């Protein structure tokens, strides 16, 4: 349905330009190198990409991120489906989801270190812990908002509960699940950084800590921008999926 993307891309470029200008102004106002000017960041980027620091850190962070996110999906999606589909389970666990959500991740870190150490497993657990809740809660809401008429139709057509799930509730919850994935994916990225700061320090989070603690704001901003770009990339990937799922929204007939 979406043809003629040129203007949108143009607008996006304009927004980028506007943001860079605001950034530049902010760097002038803030002074004392708290906010590096765009050219300094650009130079830093060239240096970091040149000496390969970034590739290594990004690869390491990406490994943790993707694994943790997949773990979150593997847990959050079915849990959300069950909570939504079996009301007793959903209504019983609901407050605990919120309690878990509202508890700062760092509170779990000692426990995670004791159980899983400082390495890969601990890190993906931190990522999954952050990403799982938006996925779970959105899936849960999506299933609860399922079209009661369609569910009755499916039951009438002989669908067993599992089939009502997979053929009606799950696809019907797709818009919610996509939002959950989007939120989970971006929160997971943040939690990757958190994990890299609070367990063994490494990856992009490690770079952030190093540059931040030593006030090297230009490379610090390079890392921040890389994280932002990763966020965009993941969201655009999800949009491709979404567009496929949305093919049926064509217009309004009869």
């Amino acid at each position, binding site marked *: 349905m979406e043809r003629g993307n040129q203007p949108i891309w143009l607008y996006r470029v304009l927004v980028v330009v506007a943001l860079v200008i605001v950034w530049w102004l902010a760097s002038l106002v803030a002074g*004392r190198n708290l906010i590096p000017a765009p050219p300094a960041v650009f130079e830093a980027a060239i240096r970091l990409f040149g000496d390969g620091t970034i590739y290594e850190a990004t690869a390491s962070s990406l490994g943790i991120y993707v694994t943790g996110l997949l773990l979150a999906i593997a847990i959050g999606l079915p849990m959300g489906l069950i909570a939504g589909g079996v009301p007793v389970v959903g209504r019983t666990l609901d407050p605990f989801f919120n309690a878990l959500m509202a508890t700062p991740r760092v509170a779990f*870190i000692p426990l995670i270190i*004791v159980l899983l150490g400082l390495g890969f497993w601990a890190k993906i657990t931190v990522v999954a812990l952050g990403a799982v809740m938006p996925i779970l809660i959105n899936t849960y809401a999506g299933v609860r908002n399922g079209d009661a008429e369609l569910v009755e139709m499916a039951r009438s057509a002989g669908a067993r509960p599992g089939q009502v799930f997979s053929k009606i509730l799950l696809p019907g919850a797709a818009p919610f699940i996509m939002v959950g994935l989007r939120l989970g994916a971006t929160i997971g990225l943040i939690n990757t950084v958190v994990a890299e700061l609070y367990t063994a320090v490494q990856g992009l989070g*490690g770079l952030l800590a190093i540059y931040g603690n030593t*006030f090297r704001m230009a490379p610090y901003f390079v890392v921040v921008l890389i994280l932002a770009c990763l966020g965009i990339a993941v969201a655009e990937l999800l949009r491709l999926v979404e567009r496929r799922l949305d093919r049926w929204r064509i217009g309004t007939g009869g």
Partner: protein
Amino acid sequence: APFRLIVTDLEPPLVPNSVMDLALSLGYFEREGVDVELVRVQQTPLAVVALQAGEGEMANVGVDTALQLVASGQLDLRAVTSPSKSLFFMIAAQEAIGDVAALPGHSFGIGRVGSVDQGLSEQVLAAQGIDMAALDQVALGQPAARAQALAAGQIDATTMSLGTWTTLPDQTGMHILVDPDAYFAAAPVVSKVNVVTPQVLTERRDDVVAVVTALVKLSRDIAADPAIWIDAMGAARPDLARADFESLAAAYAKSWSVNGGLSARELAFTADWNFKGEDFAGLEPVGLDAWVDFTVADEVLAALGTAPDLDPADR
């Protein structure tokens, strides 16, 4: 199995503690026949958790933390060496604050109420006749956050380490109000030690001795020839100029732990001082033997001999 040494720095720090990083990169550990692996975490509490969880054999932690854990009976720890007794704290302030006497009524950044830096600041200011209570204390957490708040003009003064000060890229408008020497003179407190659990001490004593030996040897080499440190740091920290390292090396000339960094007198003073702090309310003071193990350092010194001048090895 490798000997895992937990450090709270993410790269070689700009203080004598850097010998731990450099001993690895310069091959000192290797030469002592111990396979050391550095585990980097953000802060002392995480280092303790990692140690407790068996994610490392030795950790470089704050003395206050070690004392708290031992005094509260939570964790049995023994300090075996201190590669960098003091972190070279100083007080930095806005240019407008000419001297310490001008501080009252202004805002002063601290870690938090009861933190070591607050206690030290209080003591240093008291030595100059200033009551900390007359200042507007702002709790800001991590040292980097305090420095940033100072740079942003949100606070008027704060305690920070010489290393942090050196890395500040733009110091215009700020100046050193109390320099590290005056600071340490007013509050001669050991801030960091390397601890191990008694279990490690018995099971891997050889490795512990080897690590301390390597650190002492490197410290002695640097004390003899600061260029070693300047060169190695220059390679590890390309973000700073060689001149920075040269001036830091000059400042640290007398600070290398050439005898293992364990002085019974200093440690006892440090413990006493800590137990007076707010964080230790309700904790019974413990004796030196409860948290320090001199036998490792003594074994090393027996083999290497005791160096004169710096770093008293009094027991």
